[in-house]
C-alpha cells in the first residue's frame, strides 16, 4: 500500500502505476478491498473561514476532525457524513456518495460540495468548481466525483459549504401498528411543512423523526408533530437528548453484527414491496430505510442472502452499492454506466487506470 504525503506524490504515483485504487479511512470495507493507495497521509484543513461558512480540506481528512472543528463555531455539514467513528474521510464520503439521515432536510453530499482538486489519469492536477457558495463556471467536476468510486481520478482536495448548526434538536420515536400505517405517516410528514431534519423508517413499524432549530420554538413544534402522529394511532416516545441516537444511526450500529451492508436507493412506495420480498429471501436481513424512505440499508451475514438480493435488484431494476463485505465488485444490480459516463471516463482516464474491479467489470470481448 502506497501512502503519498502530498499532492505531487499522488501525481507521481498515478503517472508511474498502471492501476490505482484508493482508500481513505477504510470505513466502507467493500469499497476499500483492492486499494493500493491510501490517502490517510493527505489530511488536514487547508482553509476554514468560519464567517464564510465554507472550508477546504485535503481528501484524507477524517470527517470526525472536520465535524469537531465546525462544531466549535456552531456549524455543521448538514448531510452528516456517516461512519465518522470508523475513520471515514471526506474523500471517501464523496467517492461513495454517502450521506447521513440528515440529508433529508437540506440535501446530500452532492448539494454541499463546492469544489475539488483531482489527479486525473494522466497525472495532471485538475481543479473543478471553486470555494465560493455559488459558481457555475465550467463543467461541474465536483458533482461528477460524488458516487464515482474514484473512477475518474484521485480526489485530493475538497471544498464544502456548511450551515449554522441547529441550536437544539429533539427526536420522536413513533410506533405504529403496521408498516403500512407507518409509511402513510411518512407520506404525510413528507408533504407537510414541518421542516424535519431526519425521517427514518425502522421496520417493521417504527419511525424516527428528528427536528432542529431555535430552542424556544422546538417545544411547540414537537407538540404539533406529536398530535399529528397520535391522530394516526402512533405510540410516541420523545428524546430531548438525542445526539447518541443519531450517532448510532450514523455508525450503522443496528447493523454492526453483520458482515454485509448495502445501500439501495428507492422511492417510499417500494418499501413495503421490498419488505415482502426480503421475507422470502434465504437468511436473516436487518433493515433500515432512511431519508423518508428513499434509501434502504440492508445488512446480513449469511451468504445465502446474496442470491435473493441479486434477483430482487434485477427484477426491480434497482442499482445498489455494497458498503461492507467482500465483493468482487461493490456495484450491484443493473449497471449505472452508460454512454455518458463511459465517455467521461475515456476523457479523464484514457488508460483505464482507475477502473473499478477491472477484472469483473471489463465488458465481454474487450
Amino acid at each position: 500500500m502506497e501512502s503519498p504525503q502530498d499532492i505531487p506524490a499522488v501525481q507521481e504515483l498515478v503517472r508511474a502505476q498502471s492501476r490505482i485504487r484508493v482508500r481513505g479511512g477504510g470505513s466502507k470495507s467493500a469499497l476499500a478491498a483492492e486499494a493500493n493507495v491510501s490517502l490517510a497521509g493527505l489530511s488536514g484543513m487547508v482553509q476554514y473561514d468560519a464567517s464564510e461558512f465554507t472550508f477546504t480540506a485535503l481528501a484524507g481528512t477524517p470527517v470526525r476532525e472536520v465535524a469537531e472543528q465546525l462544531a466549535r463555531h456552531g456549524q455543521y455539514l448538514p448531510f452528516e457524513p456517516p461512519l465518522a467513528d470508523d475513520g471515514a474521510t471526506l474523500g471517501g464520503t464523496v467517492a461513495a456518495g454517502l450521506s447521513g439521515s440528515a440529508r433529508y432536510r437540506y440535501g446530500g453530499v452532492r448539494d454541499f460540495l463546492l469544489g475539488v482538486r483531482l489527479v486525473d489519469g494522466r497525472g495532471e492536477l485538475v481543479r473543478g468548481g471553486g470555494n465560493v457558495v455559488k459558481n457555475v463556471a465550467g463543467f461541474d467536476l465536483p458533482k461528477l466525483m460524488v458516487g464515482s468510486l474514484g473512477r475518474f481520478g484521485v480526489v485530493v482536495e475538497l471544498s464544502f459549504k456548511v450551515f449554522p448548526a441547529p441550536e437544539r434538536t429533539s427526536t420522536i420515536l413513533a410506533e405504529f401498528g403496521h408498516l403500512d400505517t407507518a409509511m402513510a405517516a411518512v407520506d404525510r410528514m413528507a408533504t407537510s411543512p414541518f421542516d424535519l431534519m431526519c425521517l427514518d423508517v425502522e421496520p417493521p413499524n417504527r419511525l424516527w423523526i428528528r427536528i432542529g432549530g431555535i430552542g424556544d420554538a422546538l417545544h411547540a413544534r414537537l407538540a404539533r408533530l406529536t398530535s399529528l402522529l397520535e391522530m394516526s394511532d402512533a405510540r410516541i416516545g420523545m428524546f430531548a437528548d438525542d445526539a447518541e441516537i443519531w450517532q448510532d444511526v450514523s455508525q450503522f450500529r443496528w447493523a454492526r453484527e453483520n458482515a454485509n451492508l448495502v445501500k439501495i436507493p428507492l422511492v417510499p412506495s417500494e418499501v413495503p414491496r421490498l419488505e415482502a420480498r426480503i421475507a422470502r429471501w434465504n437468511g436473516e436481513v436487518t433493515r433500515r430505510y432512511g431519508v423518508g424512505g428513499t434509501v434502504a440499508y440492508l445488512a446480513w451475514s449469511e451468504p445465502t442472502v446474496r442470491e435473493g438480493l441479486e434477483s430482487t435488484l434485477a427484477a426491480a431494476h434497482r442499482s445498489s452499492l455494497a458498503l461492507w463485505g467482500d465483493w468482487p465488485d461493490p456495484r450491484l444490480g443493473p449497471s449505472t454506466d452508460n454512454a455518458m459516463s463511459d465517455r467521461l471516463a475515456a476523457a479523464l482516464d484514457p488508460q483505464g487506470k482507475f477502473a473499478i474491479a477491472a477484472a469483473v467489470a471489463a465488458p465481454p470481448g474487450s
Partner: protein
Amino acid sequence: MPFNELLSDLAALYPSDRLLTAAAQIMPYESDGLTAFRGRPSGVVLPVTADEVVETVRLCHRHDVPFMARGSGTSLSGGSVPVPDGLVIGLNRLNRILRYDPLHRVAVVEPGVINLRVSEHVAADGLYYAPDPSSGPVCTIGGNVAFNSGGVHCLKYGMTANHVLGLKCVLPDGEVVTLGGESLETVGPDLIGMFAGSEGLFGIALEITLRLLPRPEVYRTFLAAYDTLSAAGDAVSMVVASGLLPGAMEIMDRLAIDAAEAAVNAGYPADAQAVFLVELEGPREEVAAEEVRLMKLLDDSGATEIRVAKDDAERLTFWKGRKSAFSAVGRLSPDFIVQDGVVPRSRLGEALGEIERLSQEFGIRVANVFHAGDGNLHPLIMYDGRVAGALENAERLAGEILRLCIRMGGSITGEHGVGLEKRAYLGEMYEAADTRTMFAIRDAIDPKSLANRGKMLPDAEAPALASHGAHPLEQQGVISRM
C-alpha cells in the same frame, strides 16, 4: 452545403410550419437576453415530441451541422445565441408536464415547460419547485438545467442541479441516456450534476424529473433601508454570522431601486441608498422565534427603516420589484450588460466599494442588484450603444469586475453561465490544466463539437470579447452586434 442536405432530411421530418428558414422567421431567433451579440442560424425547427428532437440531433450529427437547443432565449450570457449557420432546435412547444406524483413530490416535465408553471401546477397540493430565477415566468426548465440556474431563494435549498432527480437526454451524436431516477438518493457517479450547467454542450435534455418541496408554512419578508450600500452589505454579514438561515437575502442599490420603482411601483423607500430584502421561511413557531432575532439584528445594523410585509400580496410586491430589476434598468439606459460574478460573502463590502471605484474611473453608471446571501453580484453596467466606443468601454469595465471576482477567490459566474460572453475569462479563473480537461471532456462527449459550439469553452476558433479586439466571427461577418 451540409445544411442543404440536412434541410431536405428535416423536411421529411417536419411540416413546413415547424421548419423555419425564411429570413423573417429566423431573424427573431438571432439573439437572447444579452443583445450585444447575435448570430444567424440557417434554420429553426420546432419539434413537438422528444423523438423529433432525437431524430433532429441524429441528422445534424450525420450532416455535421452544429445545433443549439433553445428554451425561451433569456440567457444573459449569450448562451442561446445561435451557432452561426447551424440549426436552432426550439423546445418551447415541448411543454407538457408528463407526470406528477404529489405523494412522492416529483414532477416529470418536458424541457420547454416554463419554470413558474411547475410551481403553479403543484400549488394546490401545498408543494412548490424551489429554484426561482427572476425570469421564472418566461424561462424554461431545459434552459435552467443547461445553466444550473439559481434565484433569490437558492440560499437554503440550492440551485437547479440540486432539484433535478432524473434526466433523459440525447447526447450530441443522437445516443439517448437516462440519468438518475425518482429517488432522492443515488448510487453511481452524479451524472445529473455533471449535465446540469453544461450549457448545452453535452446535448439536449428531453425529460426532467424534478423534486418538489412542501411549501413553507409561513414566510416573513423584511425590507430594511440603509443610507449606504456598505451598511446594507454589513447587515448581510451580521445575519450570516448570527446563525440564522433565511430563505433569501437580496440587496438593491439606489439606481436599481429607481428602475424597479418605475417598472412596478414596489413602494421601496424613496430616499434609501440601498434596500436589503430578507425572507424567513419555515414552520410558524420557528419563524416567529427567528423573527425576534432578525428584528434585533436589523435594528442594530443601522437601518433607517424596517418594514415587514403584512400579507402575501405585500410580500409579492417586495419581490416583484426585485425580480423585475434587470429589465427595468432598460428604463434608465438604452443598453446594459448584466454581470454575474461571485465573491466570498465576507468580502461583499470590499467588492462593492471596488465596483463603485471602477464605475467612477470608467465614467459608467453601474446599478447593483445582488444575491447578497451567496455573494453573487449582479452589476448592471449601463451604456448607450449608439455612442461610438461605449459598448467596448462597458465591456472593459465588465471585464475588470470579473477579474476583481477572480482575484478575491470568487467566480466569474454564479448562475448565468459562461455563454459567449465570459469565455475569455474562464481561462483566467482556471489553470491551463483545468481548461484542458474541460476540452478533453467536451471532445469525448462531442467529438465533432456540434452541440452549442463556441459556448463556454474559449475555442481557438472563437475566443474573445470585444475588449480583446473584435470577435473573430464578427470580423468574418458571421455574427454581429446589434
